[in-house]
């Protein structure tokens, strides 16, 4: 191949890429694919499992700062900066919420603000107050959905040939099972919810209900009621990325359903594995220390 031909070929590839990217921008939103993917990724067909569906196996992680706040937020010091300095400080971040704002009902917005003010208060002195204040993350409780997805820890998807897909999160060793094509309702409320999955094209759609009302969405106090309904969409957009989208609906708390989206990145370290973040022992002094014999003296 002459240099001129090479140049022509390269130009052709660039043009094709542009056309494909344009097609992407048109086709993807129309098909209800994640809007954040628009124009970002070339068309991609993921490797298949034996059943013909995309292979989502891997160790994945979000690199957004939504665990601090789903909405726009400035960098902020951590608790007790007089001791901690820059340790524990929160990075700034842009909203992952479509349109920027969570559509709270006015009274619900008040509750969110109170949650934030008391995010580091715990009161386990009575069973009644046990869950009333404090961020569940502070207490090492299972994070729920979608929060588990954007905590600053990896998680692993284990997808085989059974009707069950495992999602195993590093934070608190939380896990959940996606029951594919499962028709039954959630039998009882749970922290990680009751996840039923199905495929829409190359997108794994997970419908999650049956939540405990106590989970939060972030350290900013964003919350929901027991009527929370989350629909997640996992779409492979490159060998190294899944586009993640979650639609959140709860008529008790929001005026309308709202949506978050961001990519999940495949962790590429050769020795990557989900390690343990068993944080219960980190919380025991905070939760129970005041009831010890030495504290009673």
């Amino acid at each position: 191949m002459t240099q001129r031909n090479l140049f022509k070929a390269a130009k052709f590839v660039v043009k094709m890429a542009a056309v494909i990217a344009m097609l992407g921008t048109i086709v993807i939103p129309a098909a209800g694919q994640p809007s954040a993917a628009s124009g970002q990724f070339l068309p991609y067909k993921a490797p298949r499992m034996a059943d013909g569906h995309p292979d989502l196996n891997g160790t994945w992680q979000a690199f957004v700062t939504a665990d601090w706040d789903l909405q726009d937020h400035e960098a902020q010091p951590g608790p007790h900066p007089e001791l901690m300095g820059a340790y524990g400080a929160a990075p700034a971040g842009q909203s992952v919420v479509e349109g920027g704002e969570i559509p709270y009902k006015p009274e619900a917005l008040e509750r969110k603000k109170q949650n934030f003010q008391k995010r580091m208060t715990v009161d386990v002195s009575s069973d009644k107050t046990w869950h009333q204040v404090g961020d569940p993350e502070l207490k090492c409780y299972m994070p729920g959905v979608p929060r588990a997805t954007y905590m600053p820890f990896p998680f692993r998807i284990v997808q085989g040939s059974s009707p069950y897909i495992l999602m195993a999160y590093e934070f608190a060793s939380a896990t959940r099972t996606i029951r594919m094509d499962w028709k039954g309702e959630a039998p009882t409320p749970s922290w990680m919810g009751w996840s039923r999955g199905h495929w829409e094209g190359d997108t794994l759609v997970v419908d999650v209900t049956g939540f405990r009302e106590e989970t939060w969405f972030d350290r900013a106090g964003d919350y929901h009621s027991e009527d929370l309904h989350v629909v997640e969409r996992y779409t492979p957009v490159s060998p190294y990325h899944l586009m993640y989208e979650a639609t959140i609906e709860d008529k008790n708390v929001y005026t309308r359903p709202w949506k978050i989206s961001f990519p999940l990145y495949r962790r590429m370290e050769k020795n990557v594995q989900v390690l343990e973040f068993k944080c219960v022992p980190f919380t025991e002094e905070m939760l129970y220390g005041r009831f010890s014999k030495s504290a009673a003296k």
Partner: protein
Amino acid sequence: MQHRILASLGILAAMTAMVVPSAGQAPAAAKSSSKVASKTPAAKKPLRTPWGDPDLQGVWNDATSTPLQRPTGLAEKDVLNDDEAAEFRAQLAHDLTRDRRDGGAEVDVNRAYNDHWMDSRRLKITADHRTSLIVDPPNGRIPPLVPLSPEREQRKARRAAANTRFNAGLPENYTDFTLPVRCVIRTDSPPYLPTIYNNDFHIFQSPGYVAIGPEMIHSARIIPLDGHPHVGKNLKQWLGDSRGHWEGDTLVVETTNFRADDGVVFMEANPDTYKITERFTRVDATTLNYEFTVEDPKTWTRPWTARIPWNKIDPDEQMYEYACHEDNYDMVHFLTGARAREKRGETK
């Protein structure tokens, strides 16, 4: 009411955790609705995943009343005939049941956790009528212990003192509770032994991996099969670090890198010299053989092996989330109870 139940849950968990290592009595194991495990020849063509591995996927249950160690009265009798088995089963069921009223008020209170809580599969012996889950040594008993180092004797004494305080209703602080009561680890740490309830294990597989999700506590051991090395020796974990490979149709899992905290390593063996190897073999559509071998020259005079049949549960039964720490009201009840007792001068 809910509180009392939760409190008794904690007591039971503590009892289980203590009884197993000290008496070496099994929190028995295995269930039995399906075929004999050890005597049924493995299926000629084992079920395979589309990528060619033996297929272990599904939810399995390991409840049984068969004890870990053979009762001394049964001496060298490793397998019972039908009549003997019926009697053995009835005796074990009687011993395990908590609704009987033959122990006086104090015992009765400790049985607050009655049969309502018990997995009914827990009242059946293994289908092959074995008298112990231990298959090696041939006497079905845990081998004799080697003398412990003074350091480990001290550690054992320290733990025993904490248990005594806990059992007297006078825990000084949360570290006087066992790890299961604290909801740090429960039956998710290998080896897997049957307990009163929640004996389910969900096995997932993907090319190159097996993942085992024990019901208690919602953790998953994700086991690579591609031969890549263990994590570095300075990285210890509560559940250790597991690597697997196939030997024929058997999944062999070796786990290392356990933390050294009290209660982490099985039967308080020595973390640095302890080894555990587990073997999972699919026997037929509804049965899997789970076998583990543990060795530690600083704890036992020889390695020993137990085999527990796992039975597939009806898919409609499902395995549910076991949240533990999230509502662990016990911790506060026990501690505030202890402080109240101290105030009243009940410090025996």
